[in-house]
């Protein structure tokens, strides 16, 4: 176990910065974090900047061609690149716009000035640079982030669950929301959040991305059996999973 503290830098692309905020929040319960690592860049919380880092934590989606250059620079410097949150991991809610024509939405939001704005469809960071690990979620889970940092300190990449949310939901004995006439993506979504949405009475929205081998066909049937028409199934699955479903449909 190395005695020198790893140097960590945070980078943000398109996102709400809720994940960086969650990192700050994790200090509330884990102040030791500050001594365990050396944070050399964290624009949301500090003015100091230093480009000498080993671990890059990237928040936010790729949304415009110029992001690629920045990403490449990060990849060149960092030994380990880890994405933070659903935007970086999946394209996040940003990818909802991928369903629309870019020109149309630019015009809808910026009117006649639309041309000034550089935009592309929202994509996961791993589409552009090699990513060593991801910390999923919208936002990330505080405790999972802390565990991930500990894994890194131990010289290993974070171990993110690849079983579905249902497992955690049952373990904590939450009544399945399907029993209350609601619908849920828990069976195909990667756990690690403690099934927080079902436990607060709302079906999982899939923010942590798909598990490795989801049975999509079967889940679609479950959703329709529980009253979702095709349009609503699509709306549900495209909140966070646009990019992953596009890929898995292509493979299918």
């Amino acid at each position, binding site marked *: *176990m190395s005695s020198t503290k790893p140097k960590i830098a945070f980078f943000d692309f398109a996102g709400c910065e809720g994940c960086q905020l969650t990192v700050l929040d994790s200090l509330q319960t884990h102040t030791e974090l500050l001594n365990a690592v050396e944070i050399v860049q964290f624009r949301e919380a500090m003015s100091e900047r230093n480009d000498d880092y080993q671990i890059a934590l990237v928040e936010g989606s790729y949304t415009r061609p110029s992001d690629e250059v920045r990403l490449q620079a990060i990849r060149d410097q960092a030994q380990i690149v880890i994405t933070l949150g659903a935007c970086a991991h999946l394209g996040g809610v940003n990818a909802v716009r991928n369903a629309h024509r870019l020109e149309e939405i630019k015009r809808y939001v910026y009117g006649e000035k639309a041309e000034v704005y550089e935009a592309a469809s929202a994509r996961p960071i791993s589409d552009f640079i090699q990513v060593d690990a991801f910390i999923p979620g919208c936002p990330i889970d505080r405790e999972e982030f802390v565990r991930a940092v500990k*894994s890194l300190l*131990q*010289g*290993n990449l974070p*171990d993110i669950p690849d079983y579905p949310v249902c497992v955690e939901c049952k373990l904590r004995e939450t009544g399945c929301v399907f029993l209350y006439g609601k619908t849920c993506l828990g069976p195909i979504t990667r756990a690690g959040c403690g099934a927080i949405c079902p436990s607060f009475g709302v079906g999982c929205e899939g923010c942590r991305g798909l598990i490795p081998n989801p049975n999509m066909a079967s889940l679609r049937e479950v959703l329709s059996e529980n009253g979702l028409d095709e349009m609503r199934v699509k709306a549900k699955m495209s909140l966070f999973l646009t990019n992953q479903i596009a890929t898995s449909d292509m493979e299918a």
Partner: protein
Amino acid sequence: MNTGRQMTLEAPSIYQPIMLSILEITSMTEMEKVFTIELPFPTSLEHRPGQFVQVSVLGVGEAPISISSSPSRSKSSFELCVRRAGALTNALHALNPGDVVGVRGPFGRGFPIERFRGKDILFAPGGLGLAPLRSVINEVLDDRSNYGRIIILYGAGQPVEMLFQDELQEWAMREDVELHLTVDKPDKKWKGNVGVITTLFSDIQVSPRNTVAITCGPPVMYRFVLMELLGMGLPEGNIWLSLERRMKCGVGKCGHCQMDHMYVCQDGPAFSYAEIRHLEEAL
């Protein structure tokens, strides 16, 4: 039958590892290191060849590792040959002599070597499969007069990936050991056989009724090696394998190593082909 679990039986919890120091670490290849673990007097291991221990790095985890030294040579220490494959094995590779590791075991059923006495023995390890078989090989060599021919067919990816090269040299020098080596990808210096392990079988003649074969290697290897051995006419009961499974407890509780109704950690990891042939999940 489990024999001699002295170490584990002493602990108040079956999951509690005994902390032991690393005497020596030898780098074998880029991926594998051999760890010599000290047994403080009067702790004894009393394992059988083919048994394994659960090795811990506290805070990282635990994994089953075969005991690579033979009982005949493991009095005050024993050896583990570990490939870097994940969290625990990475952490092991980062340790230094003098550091401690947690050990539980030995667990499982080893090879019933008393039953092999008087027979010819054909060892067919592939890659890391030599780690558990080395225990049997050295046990047999230390009791050489009680066995017939000893044939070792060893295959590795590349010459630099061959494990225990010093010992391979030694075995090669011995008159009473027939050693055949092969690699998938030769380098410039390699003069031996090239090809997968099954290509070595054509070089040897055995008397099938009096031969016991012991094989261990990656999952894909078994089917081909078995085909050769059965083709040579070896009875199913004379073919022995060591199987790998995910294991979390080592004592038949956690369920991970189950194949059909068998638990590899208890009923194995050494099995005769006759025992597992009917199990779809075995190979």
